C-alpha cells in the first residue's frame, strides 16, 4: 500500500515539475507595451537625417518637418559633405591661410563634382551645424554652396517647445 502511495506521489511530483515553466505572461505584457511605445515614437521621416553623434544641434521652436537634401555637417573637427570630410577645422577655426578667402575651395570642388556627376539634383542644402559653430563658418559654407546654384538653406534643429 505504501509503495503504491509513494509511486503515485512521485508521478504527481514529476508532472508538476514538467508543467511549471517560468510564467511568461508579465514579460509578454511588458514587451507588448514597450513595442507599442517604440512603434509610436519611431519616425520613418527622420531616417538619414540623424546628425552624427558628436554634433550637437541647436534648439529651436520651429516645428517645420525636416526633409532629406544635400547634407553639410559642420563639427568642431571639420566640414563634412554626406559624412565625408571635406575641410578640416581646428576647434571650428579655419586654417590661417583661408581666413581671407570667403569661398571654401575644397567644398566648392567636391559639390561641383557631385553636381556634374548627376549625384545632386535639388537646389536646397541641409545644414547640420553644431550649436557652438561660429557664424563665420556657416556663412562661408552658405556662400560656397550658393555659388553652385543652391538657393535655399534648411538649418536642422532640435525642437524645443
Amino acid at each position: 500500500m505504501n509503495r503504491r502511495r509513494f509511486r503515485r506521489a512521485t508521478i504527481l511530483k514529476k508532472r508538476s515539475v514538467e508543467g511549471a515553466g517560468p510564467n511568461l505572461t508579465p514579460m509578454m505584457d511588458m514587451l507588448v507595451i514597450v513595442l507599442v511605445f517604440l512603434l509610436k515614437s519611431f519616425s520613418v521621416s527622420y531616417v538619414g537625417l540623424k546628425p552624427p553623434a558628436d554634433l550637437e544641434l541647436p534648439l529651436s521652436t520651429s516645428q517645420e518637418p525636416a526633409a532629406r537634401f544635400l547634407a553639410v555637417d559642420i563639427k568642431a573637427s571639420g566640414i563634412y559633405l554626406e559624412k565625408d570630410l571635406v575641410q578640416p577645422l581646428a576647434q571650428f577655426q579655419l586654417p590661417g591661410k583661408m581666413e581671407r578667402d570667403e569661398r571654401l575651395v575644397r567644398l566648392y570642388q567636391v559639390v561641383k563634382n557631385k553636381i556634374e556627376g548627376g549625384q545632386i539634383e535639388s537646389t536646397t542644402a541641409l545644414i547640420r551645424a553644431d550649436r557652438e559653430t561660429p557664424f563665420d563658418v556657416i556663412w562661408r559654407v552658405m556662400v560656397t554652396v550658393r555659388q553652385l546654384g543652391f538657393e535655399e538653406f534648411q538649418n536642422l534643429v532640435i525642437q524645443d517647445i
Partner: protein
Amino acid sequence: MAGESVLEGLASVPRVRNPLIWSHVRVKRRLRHSDLNMTPIMNLLVILIPFLLVSVSFVELAVVHSALSEISAAPGEELKASLIVEITANGYGISSRSVDLKYLVNEGKKRAGSGSLTVTRHNRLKLQQMLRNVKRFFPEEREISIAPQADIPYQLVVRTMDAVREYRDGKDITPLFPNIAFIKIRKALPKP
C-alpha cells in the same frame, strides 16, 4: 420480471466504444491542457525591440529656413521696412534700410531715415516686442535680414531666428517676419 430480463440481456451485450465520439473527446481534452505556444512571438519581440530602440529618435527634428540676402529696395517704391537685425557680442541692433525706426516706435509715424533701435544682452523678448511694434506699421512685410558677427555661436543665431520669425502666445502663433536671410555687414574702414 420482463424488465429484469431485458437488463440482463443488455449486460450481456459487449460494450463497443464509438470511435468517432472518442476521437472528439480526445481532441477536446488535448485542447484543454495545451497552452498557446508563445515562443515565436517572444522571438519576434526580442528581435524587434532592440531594432526599434536603436532606430528610434527621441528628439524631434525640425528645420529653420534661411537664405542669403538679396533684398534691395527699388527707387520710388513704397516705403518698406527692410529690417536688419544685427547680432553683436553686446546685444541686438535693429535698423531699416529706409525707415527711421526710432521715430516710428516713439512717435508712431513712418518717415524715411536711419534711426535704429538697440536691445542689450540678447534679450529676445524685448527684441520680439520691438519687432511686433514695427510689424503693426508694416503688416505685409515678411522679409528680414539677420547680420550676426563672425564669432556669434550658431545657437544664438537660431534663437534669434525663432524670435523674429513668429510670436507665440500659448498655442496662438502670430507670424512676424518669417522670410529670413543672412547678410554680412562690412564695417567701413575709418578714413585715414
